């Protein structure tokens, strides 16, 4: 594989000052040092005198739970946040980062977990925008050439012409990564980069990052996946509660030791098979569907899910999973085919009827169909049971009943970080927000649970909690459909696995399934 030397990528912002050449001192030495960095938000201490140093030529993993301060620390490094205290050195020189532009000029590039893309622009325009290029016309051609070269080198295939908003989550992330690479960053910060990638893509990406590091870049990998740290990182720094708790060679630590450093207690996920599988609860026949931009992404999909089992759908993102999930939720119309839920044909019906038949849905994007960030925790919870009469009638919404129900749900589902039910839902961390969604969705004893990437972006502990809830729903007799791009998750959770490719289920496997065989099925049809 050919990899472009960082710092010399075409289309890079021209830099005249020699001192800020990212390749300076590439032979050895510290690329980036954060010394005694503290940061508080509205009274909350997100970082407490954190020290962090990355050497040139290494892949440095930054490990920790959600809320440990990883993203805050990296936002300081990327110039997005200014620390209250502490110093920043880039290649040995003390700097003051006045903003993201200053950081970029110093060769620091960050790929954010929540993408910073203009959705109406295509990939080329987005990357051009990030370059701050002076001329649109000529810049566009230059940047496009640079992107093509980079995407080839990194092994990414991205449609450069389509508006970024219509790309899948995984594709959008590729655009983000390309943006930083094309900008010629010598210090790369990747915030949870593999959360949305398939195994193969993740492996390829991390291998590429290693290759970049060998050529003199410094790569910081923010993650909570232990396997990645052990396979791909040269060094690991562990954060907990805004502090650095350890910095070590990952080869010198076992997975159990790493886990203990991260969460303070050892937890090892195991597969728990279904105990009692009954008749079909969801039957999908010859389902066709189109994406919002009119492209047909589902081509005669067949699927049967039985009560009491977890059916996992594995596959590369963008193969119709999103459309399948939306059609099953009832918010997107099926182009053709039939959907039967608990024995009734629900093909032409909307979410209301399907929910009355026992549908519960954990959507992939919590901010769209999952929660309303501006509403309170209690309101987000009550939205589910509003028409049931539990929370008052048409004339009067029973706020006391809502508060009591929410408090019970907060306790039952261990939702932390909600100071009161009246707090806004946007203040919950990812894991707790997902627990809130699940608390609402499971309140009505569902017969069919649709879970689309339910653990995406969540830490070890929250993921285990979410998985436990899905198993409990299954063991209570519900059929569970788990759609995920994380093959580990599908393997761990499923009683049966279907591989999805180009809008069809192209292979089915009973648990325990052969990972290799699934991988082959995914690739052969991709």
């Amino acid at each position, binding site marked *: 594989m050919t990899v472009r030397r960082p710092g010399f990528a075409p289309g890079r912002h021209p830099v005249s000052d020699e001192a800020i050449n990212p390749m300076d001192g590439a032979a050895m030495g510290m690329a980036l040092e954060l010394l005694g960095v503290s940061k508080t938000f509205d009274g909350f201490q997100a970082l407490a005198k954190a020290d962090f140093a990355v050497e040139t030529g290494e892949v440095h993993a930054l490990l920790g739970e959600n809320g440990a301060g990883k993203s805050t620390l990296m936002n300081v490094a990327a110039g997005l946040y200014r620390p209250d205290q502490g110093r920043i050195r880039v290649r040995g020189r003390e700097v003051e980062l006045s903003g993201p532009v200053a950081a970029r000029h110093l060769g620091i590039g960050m790929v954010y977990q929540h993408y910073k893309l203009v959705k109406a622009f295509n990939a080329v325009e987005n990357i051009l925008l990030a370059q701050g290029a002076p001329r649109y016309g000529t810049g566009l051609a230059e940047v496009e050439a640079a992107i093509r070269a980079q995407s080839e080198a990194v092994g990414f295939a991205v449609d450069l012409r389509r508006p970024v908003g219509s790309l899948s989550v995984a594709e959008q992330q590729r655009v983000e990564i390309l943006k930083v690479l094309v900008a010629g960053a010598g210090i790369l910060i990747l915030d949870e980069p593999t959360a949305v990638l398939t195994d193969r893509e993740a492996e390829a990406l991390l291998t590429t990052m290693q290759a970049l590091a060998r050529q003199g870049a410094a790569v910081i990998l923010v993650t909570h996946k232990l396997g990645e740290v052990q396979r791909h990182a040269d060094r690991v720094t562990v954060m907990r509660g805004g502090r650095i708790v350890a910095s070590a060679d990952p080869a010198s630590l076992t997975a159990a030791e790493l886990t203990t450093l991260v969460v303070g207690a050892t937890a090892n996920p195991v597969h728990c098979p279904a105990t009692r599988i009954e008749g079909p609860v969801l039957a999908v026949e010859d389902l066709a569907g189109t994406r919002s931009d009119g492209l047909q992404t589902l081509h005669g999909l067949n699927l049967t899910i039985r009560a009491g089992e977890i059916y996992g759908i594995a596959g590369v993102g963008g193969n119709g999973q999103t459309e399948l999930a939306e059609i099953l939720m009832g918010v997107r119309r099926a182009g053709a085919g039939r959907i039967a839920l608990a024995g009734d044909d629900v093909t032409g019906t909307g979410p209301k009827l399907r929910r009355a038949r026992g549908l519960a849905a954990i959507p992939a994007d919590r901010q769209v169909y999952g929660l*309303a960030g501006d509403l309170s925790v209690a309101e987000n919870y009550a939205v589910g049971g509003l028409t049931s009469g539990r929370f008052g009638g048409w004339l009067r919404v029973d706020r006391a009943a809502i508060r009591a129900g929410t408090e019970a749900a907060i306790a039952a589902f261990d939702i932390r970080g909600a100071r009161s039910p009246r707090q806004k839902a*946007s203040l919950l961390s990812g894991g707790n927000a997902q627990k809130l969604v699940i608390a609402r969705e499971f309140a009505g004893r569902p017969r069919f649970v649709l879970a689309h990437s339910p653990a995406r972006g969540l830490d070890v502990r929250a993921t285990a909690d979410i998985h436990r809830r899905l198993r409990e729903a299954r063991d209570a007799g519900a059929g569970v459909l788990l759609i995920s791009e994380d093959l580990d998750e599908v393997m761990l959770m499923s009683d049966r696995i279907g591989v999805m490719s180009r809008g069809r289920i192209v292979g089915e496997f009973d648990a325990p399934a052969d990972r290799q065989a699934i991988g082959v099925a995914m690739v052969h049809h991709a």
Partner: protein
Amino acid sequence: MPETLPIPLLSPAPELPVPVPELPAAKLAGRGRVTVEIRQHVSGWYQGVVLACGLVVGIGLATAILVVSGVGLSDLFQEFVVSMVTSRSSLAAVLVQAGPLAIVGLAAAVAFRVRFWNIGIEGQMILGAMAATAIAIHDVGPAPARLGLMMLAAALAGAAWVLVPAVLKIRIGLNEVISTLLLNYVAFNGLLQLLYGPWQDPVSSFPNSKQYDLAERLGSLGWGDLTWALPLAGLLTLLCWWLLNVSRFGFLSRVAEANPRLGEGQGLPMTRVMLAAALLSGALAGLAGFSICAGVEYRLTQSFFNGYGFSGILIAFLARNNPLATFVTAVLVGVLYVVGQSLQVFYGIPSAMVQLIQAVIVIGVAASDFFLRHRVRWVPGRRPDV
């Protein structure tokens, strides 16, 4: 605790936890600096204090402007404070203004609650007033039921005028800002057509309708020029408060405001909620037109609606779409209005200056919002490097 911060409340997009870049900080090299952070929690007490401070700053600035242009401080105190508290007729004049203002404020608040940007309040007022006047001129129905019929007709006509933009928005995504705004001009020209044509006053030949009969006027309350328009506004305020803050419709409207797709996915009737709120907004605007014609002017004129559309938007904004606060804000705007008139008449202050000080006070209150959403903090400087 989240690693990321919430976006400001007013931001339209539902993509939530995005790290918010700090606003440009005033930089004092090496000596610390001022940072601005998004506030995560605001208590009601703090909210009240901040709004009051905004009001005080706005009035302070307005006072300074007036003093510079030659109005004595004691005169101002007399006009603004003493006469409002002691003179029943001044207070009545304020409340006469406040009635219709409160109703248009409600019309805006109800629509904004579901993010339906109804800019066509004036057009809907015109339609409402035209419908009420048609009933009055043609003496439709028995005299005791006349006022009720006029109100009903005004509400229906106002709602009908917003129906087309609402349906176009829902069906084909047509921007309601444009469609409702343009329908104002259609309504206005329709009004002129009637007032210079069939409805022209036969007595004076002025371009306004003939006076309403006694049975077609809202009765006097026996206090200044106050009529039943004010209690009507109060009643509508309570009704809207119940609808938006107590009933299930209010809850649904909050969901529609915050994230309609969440409600859609839950099988809640988001489209119908939006349509209902838009129609209610139009009906309220129609009633506002009726309240001016039947409660203040006793006839249909060609300029009765002037300025009410934007006043309504302003009142709804200042009141955060809360119906009860809308009424209070309408009274305060009424004070500005009446004081402005007496400044013009008795102190020779030009009307542009009056509008300026009104705007300064409103901006003072509106700008205080910044301190509700953000926390401004002083970060001490670093110790010198060793």
